[in-house]
């Protein structure tokens, strides 16, 4: 097992390395001078532009040889220095991002975990009862086919505008500043509900369908038939089928992370919810490349960490991996 984890660790480090390199590389390969492009958007007076340009060139280290720029980038990274945000100048990028991270965790963690559990259980039940299957399955297909942003728009419009049940922008009322009080928490939850619901519903559909199919597959497997032939009660067979069907759902979660990131992004845009997704939108609109690069890095780190966590969980849960399976892993 140690070998397995060493391989995984190596893989993640390699991926991180590659991702950071891509992040650093792309601005340098895009047409045009990045600093110039940045500044031309800012619409400043000519002399000011000159000064700022010189500052940035030195800040970027663009006057240094390429390899040194690259090393500097890594150096800065390890010091937690992701540059200064242009949009929220002079706030450092790292601060901007860290301010947004709690909102993302508040939104994503419950949405992912709850939809996974609920979806799996629903899918399992649907695999057993025909009538439930006939209603849940088509609905799940529709849900999983729904683009995140559209469901968000739908919910925002239906529940927010038409029925006026929930607010549709921000993480809390604009009249408040974050502080510890029931009123604030209440406002927080009110603003949280719609984005959470839209993420939850789409993901739920996916898990429900996946689990239903896996359970059916497991119920028809040879070991299930054998138990049936030996008179085992349905409850035992279902229990085994469920446990075995959950395993691919765990790896499925790791595979879905990329899509979930995209979905969270779109949802935050719709609800102006101040997570990293919203930051990205602002960064794009305001041509704040530092912020954009910082967000990208954060997303990468988050996804890699989540993948690693899921790998650990999987090893704990699937006994076969502990018995020294070779190959196939990395």
């Amino acid at each position: 097992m140690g070998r397995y984890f060493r391989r995984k660790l190596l893989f993640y480090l390699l991926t991180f390395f590659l991702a950071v390199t891509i992040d650093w590389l792309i601005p340098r390969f895009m047409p045009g001078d990045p600093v110039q492009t940045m500044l031309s958007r800012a619409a400043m007076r000519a002399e000011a532009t000159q000064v700022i340009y010189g500052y940035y060139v030195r800040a970027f280290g663009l006057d240094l040889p390429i390899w040194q720029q690259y090393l500097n980038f890594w150096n800065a990274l390890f010091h937690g220095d992701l540059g200064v945000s242009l949009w929220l100048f002079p706030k450092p990028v790292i601060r901007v991002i860290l301010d947004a991270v709690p909102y993302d965790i508040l939104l994503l963690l419950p949405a992912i975990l709850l939809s996974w559990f609920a979806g799996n259980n629903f899918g399992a039940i649907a695999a057993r009862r025909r009538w439930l299957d006939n209603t849940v399955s088509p609905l799940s297909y529709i849900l999983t086919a729904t683009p995140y942003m559209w469901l968000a728009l739908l919910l925002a419009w239906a529940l927010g505008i038409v029925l006026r049940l929930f607010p549709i922008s921000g993480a809390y009322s604009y009249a408040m500043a974050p502080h510890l009080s029931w009123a604030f928490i209440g406002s927080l939850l009110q603003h949280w509900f719609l984005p959470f619901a839209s993420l939850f519903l789409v993901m739920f559909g996916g898990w429900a369908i996946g689990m239903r199919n896996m359970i059916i597959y497991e119920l028809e497997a040879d070991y299930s038939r054998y138990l049936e032939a030996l008179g085992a009660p349905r409850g035992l067979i279902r229990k085994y089928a469920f446990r075995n069907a959950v395993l691919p759902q765990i790896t499925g979660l790791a595979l879905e992370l990329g899509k979930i990131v995209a979905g969270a992004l779109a949802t935050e845009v719709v609800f102006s919810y101040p997570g990293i997704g919203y930051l990205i939108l602002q960064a794009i609109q305001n041509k704040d490349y530092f912020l954009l690069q910082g967000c990208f890095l954060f997303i990468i780190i988050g996804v890699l960490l989540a993948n690693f966590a899921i790998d650990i969980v999987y090893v704990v849960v699937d006994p076969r991996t502990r018995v020294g399976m070779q190959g196939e892993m990395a």
Partner: protein
Amino acid sequence: MSLQVQGLTVYYQTLWGDVRALENATFTVADGEIMGLAGESGCGKTTLGHSLILLKPPMRFIAGRVTLDGQELPTWDMERMNAFRFTKVSIIPQYAMNALNPTRKIGKMIAELLESRKVRFKAVLPELKRRLDLVKLPPDVLNMYPIELSGGMKQRMVMVISTLLNPSLLIADEITSALDVASQKAVAEMLADFRDLGFVNSLIVITHDMSILYQIADSILVMYAGQLAEKAPADAIIHTPRHPYTRLLIASLPEVGVRYSQKRLMGIPGRPPLLLHPPSGCRFRERCPLAFERCLEEPPFVELEKGHFVACWKALEEEGERGERAYVEA
């Protein structure tokens, strides 16, 4: 009488209609008898075997009566049949190598299976260990996962599990098909040992391989296209078969020491009929070299000699002539 089957008829439901897989099977298996069930692929032997323990869709019970140790087996009733499964009737399935839940330790699975059948695992454990020893499996196999065992070991494990509660009737379905010749011999002998040691009362060994049956079977039942062709003591089937199909079958077996130049290896020309709309009367008549007009009527499964049953008009005719000659000579 251990097992009595009368007129058992089972069809398969398909989109195009019913496939008449088993037609009017009537035979007996005595206490302590090992009956081989032989025939080509698709002749209905697996259907017969499964209909005695797990008759579920797409199989459909049409008619018949099955009695085991004087008690009627409600094979058509999945619920009521459960009481008999594992305890009175058991099966070693064709897919034995995949019959164990891959994510459960073998011992744990057996314990859960037994508890679910209201048998205390602790009470059976010493006997279980004794039997593992008998089949040359190490006792700590109970602490392993199926993936840690070789194919042969898994098969022996399944053999032990299936016979753990000393069933009256054991059905062994093609258990040697996936093995090499040396293992086949070992497994066949193990089956015979189980019977000798009293772990099982009667055995039905389903296979298309005659040589195994010659090794351990007391009697052999030959099937063709869903109908019973011939049943007789093993010696009689091999050396004095009466049914034309059995004769051709035996003739097609290679003999040790015979070269190709001396005697050609013969198959049986033609193919078995499709059982969706089977031909009327004897289903072998289209391939049978001895067929005549009478064969359009279904021949009865008749006892020509003590313990020797044949379903063939020609054989009946021969027997009649023999009887006349004996009468004349006497």
